[in-house]
């Protein structure tokens, strides 16, 4: 929506002046309401301008990827806007519901159904050959990217939640082996606490951090279960259920002073680097950061161990490049340009997964591409920060969580309730009951 504001000249009448100011004010007001969505960038002279929204992570690499894309595609201009992970979902809802220009976005598998149902994102099948890539994707990623029969993007990365420990710190406080189950972890943490380590376990947890819920579910999976059954009925209010037991376990570690919480990923990384915690559960790529000698004071001390539950299972998850409905509404040229950009970022238009491989090499991000597992460069790079054999064993036990279009909304309640239970404000039983009631209410509402 282009508008020009003309500066009145001395000979202009008062009526004209006031009219002009009124029009300008109206224009400002309309602009503030987001009328019109994306700006006028629609394929004039064959040039397409895309607005790409990402969460804040390694933005220098993102900018490099985008710059390389624009150099290879001179008629496409891509501007990048990033937001912190904790607020990303909420900011995206705000942007997309108010038609703030957004063409391509980072998305989370947990939000796919919600965003697709809300009409925020569009299928990509018309703009890139999804089936070609699906054949080389890890099965849960390929299946997860399809909603109601339509593919909604290509993977940015795929990873899992991992249990990480620092054997150097553990040994200093009297523990010389990794825990094999959750009870043993409690015993070990008690031993370490008695020898002066104030909080041996660190949980990355806050009611606004979506990773917290993933990690809780991952650890519940290691006890042998999920939070919903096949019919999306909540199963976690049953005291014998794995999720209930794990909530009790986490709450008890906080209550007994064996664990403390850190609200965000970067904070948890810093905390682990103080040497005041020996165990944590985080997204696996954080292990690459923890063992990075350039950024981590305790690099080399951190190790991946199998989830210490009876099944040793964990949560596998994926993030993906998504096409906004707004981009499609802006016309074929923009939608096609956005599709090409998504393919360059998440696919292999020239036969190589350049960007996915770069993320794996530079940052240790997992990938949803089967063929990259055999890439010698990737194997060598991963070997520098993780025991690859343990990684493969843990990956083989990764599973996805069950999702519906309302599970993102439910997750908000679940995190709030877990937060209250960990702080001792409510019992775990009450927290699980409130969360289960919310799940049933949402299931009925969105049926």
């Amino acid at each position, binding site marked *: 929506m282009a508008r020009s504001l003309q500066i009145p000249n001395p000979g202009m009448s008062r009526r004209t002046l006031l009219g002009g100011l009124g029009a300008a004010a109206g224009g400002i007001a309309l602009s503030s309401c987001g009328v019109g969505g994306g700006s006028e960038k629609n394929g004039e002279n064959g040039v397409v301008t895309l607005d790409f929204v990402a969460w804040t992570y390694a933005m220098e690499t993102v900018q490099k990827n985008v710059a390389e894309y624009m150099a290879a595609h001179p008629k496409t201009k891509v501007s990048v806007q990033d937001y912190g992970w904790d607020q990303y979902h909420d900011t995206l809802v705000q942007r997309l519901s108010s038609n703030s220009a957004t063409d391509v976005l980072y998305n989370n598998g947990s939000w796919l159904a919600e965003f697709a149902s809300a009409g925020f994102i569009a299928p990509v099948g018309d703009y890139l050959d999804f089936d070609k890539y699906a054949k080389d994707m890890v099965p849960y990623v390929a299946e997860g990217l399809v909603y109601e029969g339509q593919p909604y993007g290509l993977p940015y990365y795929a990873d899992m939640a991992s249990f990480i420990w620092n054997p150097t710190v553990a040994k200093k406080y009297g523990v010389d082996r990794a825990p094999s189950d959750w009870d043993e972890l409690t015993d070990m943490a008690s031993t370490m606490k008695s020898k002066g380590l104030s909080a041996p376990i660190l949980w990355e947890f806050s009611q606004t951090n979506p990773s917290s819920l993933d990690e809780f579910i991952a650890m519940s999976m290691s006890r042998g279960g999920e939070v919903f059954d096949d019919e999306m009925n909540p199963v976690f209010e049953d005291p014998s259920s794995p999720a209930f037991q794990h909530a009790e376990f986490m709450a008890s570690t906080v209550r007994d002073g064996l664990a403390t919480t850190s609200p965000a990923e970067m904070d948890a990384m810093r905390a682990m680097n103080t040497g005041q915690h020996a165990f944590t559960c985080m997204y696996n790529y954080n292990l690459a950061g923890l063992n990075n000698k350039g950024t981590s004071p305790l690099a080399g001390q951190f190790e991946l161990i199998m989830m210490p539950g009876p099944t040793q299972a964990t949560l596998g998850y994926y993030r993906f490049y998504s096409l906004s409905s707004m981009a499609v509404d802006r016309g074929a040229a923009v939608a096609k340009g956005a599709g090409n950009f998504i393919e360059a970022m998440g696919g292999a238009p020239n036969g190589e997964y350049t960007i996915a491989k770069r993320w794996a090499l530079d940052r240790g991000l997992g990938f949803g591409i089967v063929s990259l597992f055999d890439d010698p460069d990737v194997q060598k790079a991963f070997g520098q920060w993780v025991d690859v054999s343990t990684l493969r064993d843990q990956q083989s036990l990764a599973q996805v969580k069950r999702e519906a*279009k309302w599970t993102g909304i439910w997750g908000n309640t679940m995190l709030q309730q877990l*937060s209250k239970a960990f702080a001792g404000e409510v019992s775990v039983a009450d927290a699980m009951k409130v969360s289960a009631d919310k799940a049933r209410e949402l299931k009925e509402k969105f049926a």
Partner: protein
Amino acid sequence: MLLSPALIVVLGLTLIPIARAIWTSFQQDSPLLPSKFVGWGNYSDVASSNGFVGAWLVTLTFAACTVVLTTTMALGAAALLNSSFPGISVVKPIVMLPWAVPGVIAGVMWRWVFSDSWGALNAALSGAGVIDEYVKWLSTPNLAFMAVVIAQSWSLLPLATIFILVGYQYIPFEQYEAARLDGASFWQTYRFITFPNIRTAVIIVVLYVALMGITAYDIVYSMTSGGPGSATTLASYFTWSISFRELNFGQAAALAVMMAGVSLILVIGLLKALPKDALTDE
């Protein structure tokens, strides 16, 4: 006619959004559900929702604590800046510095101060031999609440100080001179000369800080994300959460209207409670 540009701006940027919010508060408004009129349903759903009362209690306590702390600190800072001492030209910009720091940045900065295992405060206390084991400032409910009150007060201090400093600088010197000649004590001078002259500024500060406390969001959520538990969960978080996490714009609008109503009642109540001449020149 001359007022029309201003009226259009006010209408476009204030009245229309308020009207829109009120209208939305009576609708089922979600991108996941069909729109429909629900009457007072959003208001009753929000009021009966889990944590609503608790969030308001936390919010009002938070606002009250920041009013007391900020106003006290601003009175002290303004008195200090109104005096003359070596280095005041350096102290003045330092006191004003928090004004230049955006709320989110301030929140992150204070998180770095209070963080449990790597925060600056624990490092300093430990270095000074005051503590053997680090204090869990942000993961202990009462301490986390205290931390966010301090951070909020710190960010509001500059403007509050300026308001009161302006009041100080309008006090006629002759009044102090007369008090001195009459043998008035420090307390008598403050009570009968200083405070009456800065009273209007103090009232404005109380109003300003109270309203900022009721609508606070950025600093608190950058520091604690509303936790631990619901210790720092404010009503503003409810609005944000219902709107953008639960995609329920109707209920969020209802909550926003309620929050605006409480703010309005507070302002009117405070103004009514004042002496008639409190906001006018005597």
